């Protein structure tokens, strides 16, 4: 079982327009593993995620999920594969016209012919799992940030996915709620054997949940390894990120002045 990775990225390049966002990304994620993709703002984490979800097409390179190349896949096969994948978006992406329970039940209603009772029980069970019991009838606009994240997670796991993507689980949440969510991610992996990819820039959260971490920087992977290997890395950019140091770029007075006064008239 463990011989074949669930995710296999080879030499992935991505552009927005002329700007290269991802550069020669190679990454493997094994079954049952929690892989955390870490990196500063703008390093390309969300872009990588969009490629893994086949929302963007790579400029070069291949992405295999469950052993299948997602960009060579006929749309029908892609639809089938997507039913085995759960995604929790950064902003939740709950359907605003549906209440919490309907949101969570939505994939089941679309993809299965299960009895209505079964579907509703399943949806409520998942809400229990994420500690949102009793909020079934609220609309997304009535939820707090943490509740939105948890509802989105409930929807992502309602089909019992084999692979779960989670964008920024703890961004903008207080430390207690964020620790709760981390705990939940670990429990999900243990109970359901899900392979989980988490994108985050929160260090504590990353080290709490990760089996392995991959560090993205300006579109390149600096290091991929266990939490220990990453902590002990002697790459200065990795250490800067871990110690929240900003890079001290020496100031070039001429260029700096030029940037500040460029395009101004009368100077």
């Amino acid at each position: 079982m463990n011989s074949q990775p669930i995710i296999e990225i080879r030499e992935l390049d991505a552009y927005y327009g002329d700007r290269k966002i991802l550069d020669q990304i190679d990454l493997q994620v094994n079954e049952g593993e929690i892989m955390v993709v870490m990196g500063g703002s703008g390093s390309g984490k969300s872009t990588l995620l969009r490629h893994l979800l086949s929302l963007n097409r790579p400029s070069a390179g291949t992405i295999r999920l469950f052993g299948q190349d997602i960009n060579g896949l006929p749309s029908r096969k892609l639809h089938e594969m997507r039913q085995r994948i759960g995604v929790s978006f950064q902003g939740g992406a709950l359907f605003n016209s549906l209440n919490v329970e309907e949101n969570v039940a939505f994939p089941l209603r679309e993809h299965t012919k299960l009895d209505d009772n079964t579907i509703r029980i399943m949806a409520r069970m998942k809400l229990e799992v994420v500690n949102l019991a009793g909020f079934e009838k609220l609309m997304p606009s009535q939820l707090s940030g943490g509740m939105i994240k948890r509802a989105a997670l409930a929807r992502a796991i309602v089909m019992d996915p084999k692979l779960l993507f989670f964008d920024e689980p703890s961004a903008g949440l207080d430390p207690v709620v964020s620790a709760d969510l981390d705990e939940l991610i670990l429990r999900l992996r243990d109970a359901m054997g899900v392979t989980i990819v988490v994108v985050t820039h929160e260090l504590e959260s990353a080290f709490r949940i990760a089996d392995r971490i991959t560090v993205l920087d300006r579109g390149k992977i600096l290091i991929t390894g266990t939490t220990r290997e990453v902590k002990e890395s002697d790459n200065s950019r990795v250490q800067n990120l871990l110690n929240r140091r900003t890079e001290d770029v020496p100031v070039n007075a001429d260029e700096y002045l030029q940037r500040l006064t460029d395009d101004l008239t009368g100077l």
Partner: protein
Amino acid sequence: MTRTMSFIEGTGRITLNAIEEVGYHFALFVESLYWVIAGPFLGQPVRIPIIVSEMMKIGVLAVPVVMLLSFSNGVMMAIQGIATLQEFDAESQVVPGIAYSVTREFGVLIAAIVVAGRSGSAIAARIGSMQMSQEVDALRVMGIEPVRHLVAPILLAMLLMMPILTLLADSAALIGGGLYTGIVLKLSLSTFIDRVFETIALYDLMQGVVKSLVFGLLIALIACSNGFSVHGGSEGLGRATTRSVVLSIAAIVVADMIFTYFLNR
């Protein structure tokens, strides 16, 4: 020199963009059609409850406004018609005049413009905000085609409701025209209706209905594609909504002109 160049360049770019946009609408149409036909076999049927709710929003809720505008339009045509024809002592010819222009032209035009104003903006706003909040992405990664789930039901509802709205608009306008003519020319409403049916043939009614299908298609495609193209926050959303209404009304009027030219030669 440079000015002409940039003018030509600009025109070229606009033309290219327009062609690209028309192509996109066409692709959207083909894809919706594909899901309507093939969806049930791929486990992705176009859901009937969604179609019904769209029919409600697009069609049923538009009935009062469409009727009111058409009725007023009928009255106005009678007023103008009688005033003009009086000069030739031919007031009685007002009936065929109204009958033709309502069934062939104005019934469908009013229905389409009302729907473009109401639903063109609402649809673009709804899809646009779903695009902004990543709901469209969420659908996609769940294995649910947004075109199948969002566009196809709107398109079907539009194609089902536009002819009905058009026929309702026709009748409201004829009643409006009939009432005014009746009062001024001492013609009973039933005589008026009889004379209307002497004048128009099924062909005239169908002309309106066929146009209504095309207009419905234009409104649905323009609204949906503007919704999907939203980017750049709430300002972008507002822009897409406005653009959707303006473009669909423009498309309707131009298409109508082309139709009328070919159908009445």
